[in-house]
C-alpha cells in the first residue's frame, strides 16, 4: 500500500513535467496543425541553459542554493528557450508554411536531430551533473500520519507540482483572457479568417512557439532539480512521452495535455514498480497506439472551442 502510494507520488511529479512539455506540443499543434518534433530537444536545451547559467545566477543571490536563485535560473532558462523556439520557427518552419505537411514534418525531424547531435558536439555526449539550485531533501512527515509517514516526499517533487500548477494557471489566463490569447484561439479556429480580421499571424505563431518553448525550458530546469544528471539526448524520450501525453489528453487541448501528462507519469511509475522497468517505454507507446486506434481525439476530445 505504502509502496503503491510512493509510486503514485513519484509518478505524479514526473507526470507534471510531462504535462509542461505536452503543453508546448499542444499549443503549437493548435495553431499550426503540426507536431513540433524538436520540442523535446528545446526541453533539453533548457536544462543545459540552467547548467551554464545556474552557478553564475545563484552567485547574484548569495552563495548557496536558494529558492529565489532557482526561480531566477528558471526564468532565464525559459527566456533562452523562448528565443531558441522563435528562432527555430523563423528559420525552419516559416518558409515552409504553404508547403505540404510532410515537408514540414521532415524539417521538424531534421531540426530535432540537429539539436540532439549538435548538442552532443557542443556539450559532449557524457551526462553532466546539474548544479544544486535548491537544497533538495525529503520532508519529515509527522508521526500522526501513522504508516503513511514512511512515504518519501521530496521538496523538489512538491516544487515541480506547484510550479507546474502556477504555469498552467498562467497559461490558461494568457489563452483565455488576453488579446494575444484570443488571437491564438482565432488562429487555431480558422487561420484564413483570423488573418482577414487583421491578426498578424506571424507574430501570433512566433508568440506561440516562444510560449511553448518557455514551458519546455521550465520543465528542463524542473527535471534537472529532480534528477541532476543531464545529457544532450534527454529530450528524445521525454519529448516522445510528452507527445503521447498530449495525444492522450486530446491534442490541441490545454487541460487535456495536463491530464495526459499526469496519467502518463503515473502509468510509467506503476509499470516500473509492478511490471518491469525495461517495459516502461514500450507500454507508454502501446498506450499511444491504443488511443489513436480507439479514440484519436483523446480523452478530453477537441470538439470544444478552447483549442490553442
Amino acid at each position, binding site marked *: 500500500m505504502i509502496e503503491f502510494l510512493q509510486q503514485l507520488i513519484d509518478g505524479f511529479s514526473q507526470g507534471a513535467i510531462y504535462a509542461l512539455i505536452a503543453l508546448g506540443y499542444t499549443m503549437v499543434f493548435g495553431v499550426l496543425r503540426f*507536431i513540433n518534433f524538436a520540442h523535446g530537444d528545446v526541453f533539453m536545451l533548457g536544462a543545459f541553459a540552467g547548467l551554464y547559467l545556474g552557478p553564475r545566477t545563484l552567485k547574484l543571490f548569495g552563495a548557496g542554493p536558494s529558492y529565489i536563485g532557482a526561480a531566477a535560473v528558471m526564468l532565464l532558462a525559459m527566456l533562452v528557450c523562448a528565443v531558441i523556439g522563435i528562432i527555430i520557427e523563423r528559420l525552419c518552419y516559416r518558409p515552409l508554411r504553404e*508547403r505540404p505537411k510532410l515537408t514540414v514534418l521532415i524539417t521538424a*525531424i531534421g531540426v530535432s536531430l540537429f539539436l*540532439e547531435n549538435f548538442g*552532443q*558536439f557542443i556539450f559532449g555526449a557524457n551526462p553532466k551533473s546539474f548544479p544544486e539550485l535548491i537544497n533538495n531533501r525529503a520532508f519529515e512527515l509527522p508521526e500522526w500520519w501513522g504508516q503513511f509517514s514512511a512515504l518519501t516526499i521530496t521538496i523538489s517533487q512538491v516544487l515541480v507540482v506547484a510550479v507546474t500548477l502556477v504555469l498552467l494557471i498562467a497559461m490558461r489566463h494568457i489563452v483565455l483572457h488576453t488579446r494575444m490569447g484570443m488571437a491564438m484561439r482565432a488562429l487555431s479556429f480558422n487561420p484564413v479568417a483570423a488573418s482577414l480580421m487583421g491578426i498578424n499571424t506571424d507574430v501570433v505563431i512566433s508568440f506561440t512557439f516562444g510560449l511553448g518553448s518557455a514551458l519546455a525550458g521550465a520543465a528542463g530546469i524542473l527535471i534537472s532539480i529532480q534528477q541532476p544528471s543531464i545529457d544532450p539526448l534527454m529530450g528524445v524520450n521525454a519529448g516522445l512521452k510528452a507527445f503521447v501525453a498530449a495525444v492522450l489528453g486530446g491534442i490541441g487541448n490545454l487541460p487535456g495535455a495536463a491530464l495526459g501528462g499526469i496519467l502518463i507519469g503515473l502509468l510509467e511509475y506503476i509499470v516500473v514498480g509492478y511490471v518491469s522497468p525495461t517495459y516502461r517505454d514500450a507500454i507508454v507507446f502501446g498506450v499511444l497506439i491504443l488511443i*489513436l486506434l480507439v479514440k*484519436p481525439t483523446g480523452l478530453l476530445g477537441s470538439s470544444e472551442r478552447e483549442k490553442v
Partner: protein
Amino acid sequence: MDKWPKSILIAVLLGCLIGSPFVFQINPYYYDILLGIGISIILAASLNLVNGYTGQFSLGHAGFMGIGAYASSWVTLSYGYCLGANTTSTTTVFLLALLGGGLMAGIAGLMVGVPSLRLKGDYLAIVTLAFNEIIKGVIQNAEPLGAQRGLGGMVQHTNFFWTFGFAALTVYVVVHLVNSTYGRGFLAVRDDEIAAEAMGINTTKYKVLAFVLGAFFAGIAGGLYAHFKQFIHPEGFNFLRSVDIVVMVILGGMGNTAGVCFAAVLLTILPEFLRSVSHYTWLPLWLQQIAENRMILYSLLLIVLMLTRPQGLFGGLGMPRRRKDVEK
C-alpha cells in the same frame, strides 16, 4: 519504358553471378562496404514503396529490419545444423531463414498498416516510430534472443551474390509493381486519397499492402544484415537507424527508385568517407569532429533539402514518367 527494369534485373543478377567469385579478391574493407550498400538499397527501395509511392510516412523501418534480423538468426541458430553441413543445405536453411524473417516482418507490417488506415501524416509517423520502439523494447526483454546483450554466433552466409540478388529483386518488385495497372493505385493514394477512393480504388488495401511489402523486404534486409555482421543488438534497430533509411529516401527523392538507390549508395559510402576525413589532421579540429558525427550533417541536409529542394536531390531526374508527377 516499363520493360527496362526486367532487363536490368537480369543484368544485375548475371553480373552478381559472374562477379561473385571475383569480389572475394578485393580488400575486405571494401567488400564490407559493398555488402552494406546492397543492404541499404533493399531498405531504401522498400521504404520508398511506403513513403514515396504510397505517401504514408513511416519512421519505423528499422523495426521491421530488426524483426527480420532476429527471426532469421533464430532460425539459422536453431535449425542450422539440422540438414547437415554441406553448402547446399546450409544455403537452403539460410534462404528459408531469410524468408521467415521477411514473413515475420511482413506480419508486423500488417500490424502497423492497420492503424495507418485511420492516421495520416504526423500521427502516422509517430505511430510507426512508436512501433519501432515497442519492437526494440520487446527484443530487449526477450531472453531467448539475447535481450540486452545482443545476439551473436550466426555464420556469415550473406555474400555478394545474395545481397545484390535481393537488392535487384526488391528494386524490380517495387518498380514493376508501381508501374503496373494494379500498382497505379499506390500513386493514386499518395496524390489524393479522397479522389482515389471516389474512383473506386480500395485505399485500405493499397496502404496495408505497401506496409506489408515494405516490411517484408526490410525483414529480408535485416536477415542479410544479421548474417553479414554476425552480431545484432536491439539498439542497432532503433529510431536513428530508421532515420538513416528515411534520409536515403528523401535525399533520393520520394517516389524515385533510381534516385533512392543512388542515395542509398551515397549515404552508405559517406560515413566511411567522413571517417577517413576525420583522420586528416590538417583540417581544423571542429571540422574533424563534425565529420565524425555524421548525424549533424544528415540533419542539416534534411533541413536544407526541405527548404530548398523538397523533391530530393534526384527527384524529377529519374524515370520520365515520374517527372510528370512531380511537376503537377
